[in-house]
C-alpha cells in the first residue's frame, strides 16, 4: 500500500484488510488537524456502519506508532496529558486483525 503526499491541510489515512474492503479504497486524504477522539466519528459519517464492522476491533497507528483510542464520551480531565491530535501530513492507519491463514 503506497500513499501519495497529502495536500496542504490534510493527512493521509490508510485502510488495511477489511477496512479497505469496507471503504472501497486503500487510502485517502482527510482534513487536518483532527483530534484523535473524533476520528471514528468522522469515518462513521463517511462510511455508515464502519464503526461496528471495522473500527471497534481495529488498531490505529499514527506515523507507524500505535495509539490508544480515547474511550468514547471520556472527556479530558484536568492534569491529563494533552489529547492526541492528527496533524497535517500525518499518516494514520486503520489495521483490523486478520484471522485466516
Amino acid at each position, binding site marked *: 500500500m503506497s500513499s501519495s503526499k497529502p495536500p496542504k491541510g490534510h493527512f493521509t489515512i490508510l485502510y488495511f484488510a*477489511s477496512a479497505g474492503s469496507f471503504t472501497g479504497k486503500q487510502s485517502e486524504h482527510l482534513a487536518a488537524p483532527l483530534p484523535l477522539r473524533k476520528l471514528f466519528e468522522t469515518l462513521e459519517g463517511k462510511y455508515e456502519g464502519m464503526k461496528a464492522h471495522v473500527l471497534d*476491533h481495529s488498531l490505529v497507528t499514527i506515523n507507524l*506508532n500505535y495509539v490508544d483510542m480515547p474511550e468514547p464520551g471520556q472527556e479530558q480531565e484536568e492534569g491529563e496529558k494533552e489529547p492526541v491530535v492528527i496533524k497535517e501530513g500525518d499518516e494514520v492507519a486503520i*489495521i483490523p*486483525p486478520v484471522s*485466516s*491463514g
Partner: protein
Amino acid sequence: MAQYTDRALTEEEMERYSRQMIVPGMGKDAQLRLINSKVLIIGAGGLGCPAAQYIAGAGVGTIGIVDGDVVEISNLHRQVGHSTTRVGMMKVDSLITHLKGLNPLPSYIPHLTHLTPHNAADIISQYDLVLDCTDNPATRYLISDVCVLLEKPLVSAASVQASGQLTVLNCPPVPQGITSILGVTHPLPPCYRCCFPKPPPPSAMTTCGEAGIVGTVVGMMGIAQAGEAIKILAKGHHRADILNDPPHEPTFPPSLLIYSYDLEKGPSSATFRSVRMAGRRKTCFACGDNSPQNLTLEGIQKGTPNYDQFCSLPSAKVTLPMEDRISASTYKDILAGTQSEPEQKILQGILIDTREKEHFSFGAIPGAINVPFGKLLTAAAIAKREKQNGQEGREISKETYERLSSVLPREILDQEEDKKDKESEPPIFVVCRRGHDSQEAVEKLREMGLDRGGKRKIVDIIGGMKAWKEEIDPSFPFI
C-alpha cells in the same frame, strides 16, 4: 525449555546445516540451540506448510504439528507441503511425509486433532515455542491465552485475500499479571488480546473459503513467521530469565508487520510496513494486572472463557421476515412465467446480484445486474447523508439521484414512465452468494426509498446462488 547441551555436531549435521551456520550471528551454539528446541506448529495450511518447511530445513529438533483437517484439492494452490496424490489424507500426516523428505533428522510429532480448550494446554506444554498458523479468531484467542499461562513465546501470522500480518507475542514470556518489572523500562511483551482486545464481528470475518487468498501472500507470511521463530530459538530470546540479566535491555519493541499486495495495481507496488505496537496492557483480560482472576488453565478446560461465544458476539445482521423472501425455485418460476398461483403472480422485475465481481464473472442468473455488496452499502450511506441534510420524504431528490447513479445502475433507480402512477411496480429481487448479504441489501434498498413507498416489492432469494445451484442448476459454477 530445551536444555543447552554442548556436543559436537555430527558429520551429517555439519554438511546439512553448513550454509546457515556460517551466516554472521549463527555458528555452532545457535545451531545446537535449534537442534535442542521443540516447536509447535498449529495449523497445517497456507501458513503452516511454508513455515514447517523452513523450521524443518533449519534443523529444529522436535516439530509438533496440530490439525484435524484432510487435504483438499482447493488447498494446493497455497498449501505447498501437501500434494495432489495426498488429497484426502490427514493434513498432519501429509505434511510430515513432505518434511521427512526434506529433512529426516528432526522428530516429527503428529497431533491429529483441532486445538480445543480441552486439549490446548496439554499439547502446548510439550513445546518451547508456538507458531499460530490457524484460520479463525476463536482459536487465535485460545492459543494466545494458553501461551500466556504456560509462558510460551508465540509467533502469530495471518493472511486473507491479499493482506498479511505477522507479530511476535509473549517473547520473552513474562508471568501472567505482571505488568512492570523493577528496573525494566521498556514495554513488556504483549499478548494477542493486548493487540486486539475485541474480536471482529462474525460479519467482518472473512475466511479463505469465503474471501479467497493469494498463495504467495500467505506463503510469504508463513516463511517470515518461521524466520522469527528460528531467530528467537537460535539466539535464546525466548528465555524468560533474559529479563533478569543486566543491563535489562533484552526485549525488542513489539511490532506488527503488514504485507499488502494488490492485484489491481501495477508491478512493484507491494509494500511491507512495520508498525510499533504497545506493550503488555495493564487492563488486558489475559495478562494484565487482574488477569489471574479472569483466566486460568483449569477455567479454560472447563469452558471459561467461552471462545466461540466471545467471537460470535451479536452482529448487526438483518433477518428478513419470510414474506420478504422467496426460494430459488419460486424465482425460477417467476422467470419462466410458470407460477403455480397465477392470481398472485409476481412480475419479473429486476434481479440484483450482490456478489463480488470476481464471483459474478464465473456465471450468474440470466439478466442479473451485478452490484457488489460494498458498493450497495456506499450508495446507502450516500442516501442516508442526503436525507440528514434535509432531503425529507420517501422520494429521491434529483441531486441524490445523480450521486446514487454514480454507484448504482440506472435500471434500479429509474422508474418507467408508464408505470409511474400504477399501484404496483415490477419488484427488485436480490441474490447473493449464500443468502446473508442479500437480506441486508433488501433493507438498504428500502431505506434508499427504492420501494417507492411500498409500491415496489423488494425481496431476496433464500440461500443465494448456493441454493440456485442446489435446487435449480447443478452445473452452475459456484465458488
